[in-house]
């Protein structure tokens, strides 16, 4: 599954550690929430970055105390119809100030890239190669946005206000 990060297809530096398998002594790992919560402090002490796969059925509140020490949070789209992770992403970014990698996993298709990136995702485990290749072009599909989100893009309402101001200033 190709990983798109910062707009480009890149190699995944995180090793997905299967449930029950031993954690390597160093290197970046991506582990399940259940495993992480068993002993977060010990895991965070490891040499190497920690990423957590957080289920979409659990409030992100339980993850909040560790956010500044996590290198990645992976949120899950079990099907493309299940949009709970969009809310989780915005809460992590906008309410809890998380600024590490926020990764979309599961059924990730090009048609969701705009929504995902606006909600705060910056890394995408894309299901289809062709979609990953089309990332740069599809994420730019829209130039007008109606809602303010943490991505900081100026909304249509605000752009209109700015236009008004510059018009009246020019008169």
């Amino acid at each position: 599954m190709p990983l798109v990060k910062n707009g480009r297809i890149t190699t995944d530096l995180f090793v997905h550690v299967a449930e029950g398998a031993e954690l390597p002594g160093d290197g970046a790992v991506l582990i399940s929430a259940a495993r992480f919560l068993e002993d977060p402090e010990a895991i965070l002490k490891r040499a190497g970055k920690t990423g957590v796969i957080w289920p979409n059925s659990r409030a992100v509140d339980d993850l909040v105390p560790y956010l500044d020490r996590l290198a990645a949070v992976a949120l899950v789209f079990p099907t493309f119809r299940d949009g709970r992770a969009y809310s989780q992403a915005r809460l992590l970014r906008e309410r809890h100030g998380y600024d590490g990698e926020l990764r979309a996993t599961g059924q990730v298709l090009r048609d969701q890239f705009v929504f995902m990136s606006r909600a705060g995702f910056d890394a995408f485990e894309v299901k289809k190669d062709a979609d990953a290749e089309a990332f740069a072009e599809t994420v730019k599909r829209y130039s007008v946005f109606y809602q303010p989100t943490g991505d900081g893009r100026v909304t249509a309402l605000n752009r209109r206000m700015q236009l008004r101001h510059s018009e009246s200033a020019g008169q």
Partner: protein
Amino acid sequence: MYAYDELDRTLINERVSEFRDQVKRRLSGELTEDEFKMLRLQNGVYLQLHAYMFRVAIPYGTLSSKQLRRLAHVARRYDRGYGHFTTRQNIQFNWIKLAELPDALAELAEVGIHAMQTSGNNMRNVTSDQWAGVAPGEVEDPRIWSEILRQHTTLHPEFSFLPRKFKIAITASEHDRAAIKIHDIGLRLHKNADGETGFEVLVGGGLGRTPFIAKTIKPFVHGRDILSYVEAILRVYNQYGRRDNIYKARIKILVHELGIEKFAREVDEEWRQMGHSALTLDHSVIEEVRSRFSYPAYEKLPHMPDELKQAAHDPLFERWRKNSVAPHKVQGYSIVTLSLKPVGGPPGDATADQMDAIADLADKYSFGEIRVGHEQNLALPHVAKRDLPQLWKALDRLGLATPNVNLVTDIIACPGLDYCSLANARSIPIAQELTRRFANHDTADMIGRLHINISGCINACGHHHVGHIGILGVEKNGEEFYQITIGGRADENAQMGVLIGPAVPYAEVADVIEDIVEAYLALRDRPEELFVDTVKRLGVEPFKERVYATR
């Protein structure tokens, strides 16, 4: 009218080109039907019994004549020459070819019309009072808020994949023409004791398999906070709404399972944590949206022009005027309802030629504006009273002057088995038969306001639960049967109808309805007592007796 600017137009065009690409990928097999389904639904495209069905949004029911002409063109060029106005201020086309859809959308986009989110598990077309901005006594024009919400809910990055569809309706009048109590969120614009404008927020209404009347979650939310409050509701719903069972996924079930108090606490907590957010609407932003609604340059006209006095001698004109013409907030003007319910016709259908002609009449008599109501009728919102006689003649020639608005033949019906793949039974032929039975205008007049609503299955697209008389198609051993409810209503006193007894076969429905109406005529305590009020006073028993005694 709201004028789309460059930004709105750009967004719609971007949506069209995205959909063009999605259709191309579907046709090439790059997208599976399962993947494509969600994408086409987000653009109003269903796969129905015979063909693709295409649902186009008419936000808050307001259309310009230019837009209506374009809808006529789409009906002619891409469909079979007609369209079907629905209970959700949408228009549906039943015979569209998938490969041609992007072109149809592009042609609509040129006049500021789109099909975004008319379907799918997202925030649907925001609906409002079809008399918004012209009804006497309204708090303010609710379309300003509808438009703010329309924008906010369009392609929302957090709420485009909700557990289920989500519908918001707004009214600003005492008399609710937007049926807000049967919506996921209902908003009632009113003024608080300090004279500030804000919303009573209701939540959790809806029909379908498990009908509920919405409950008030907050009596007053200031206008500037309405986006953040709605966002808080949606966020709670997105996270906790059931996804394990589509029949239990609507917000009404969440509200019911948690109880309104607990749900309200969750929402308040979320809202509190959102704090003073970017969603708070600046006064100047609200004014900016308001400024893009234009209103006609009304003339100073007499309350009772000579033309009207003269025409009053014609009983046919008078019958129509009494039935279809409503008071306007500006003296000398009126709101005219165009009945899309001719005797023997499918409710809500309009031909392309009719649409074009209505657009011409709107230009001539209504400042180029048309409205679409949830009763599946159209309206011309600013007709000078002196023009009423001329307008009536023109409408009559077009078959749009049936004087039956709000009467027994002003039936709301879903497409039923004639078009819909989910149907258990026919709806349209029942409606047609009933319009024939009650075709006599004097009888209909004597019966008075009586709403019949028909749905072809439990999904309740025809709002049968809230019909004064509701007819629901069910299937029994491969045959069409119909359950009859009475006493429902969708206005400010909304309530669900009560079942009167066992379902009846197709062939008996019209007789049963006639029996119910006859029973009412015998039971009402005076001619002014409406059917629903008689039912309220007496309950269903006397009606039940009348219907089943001989069956």
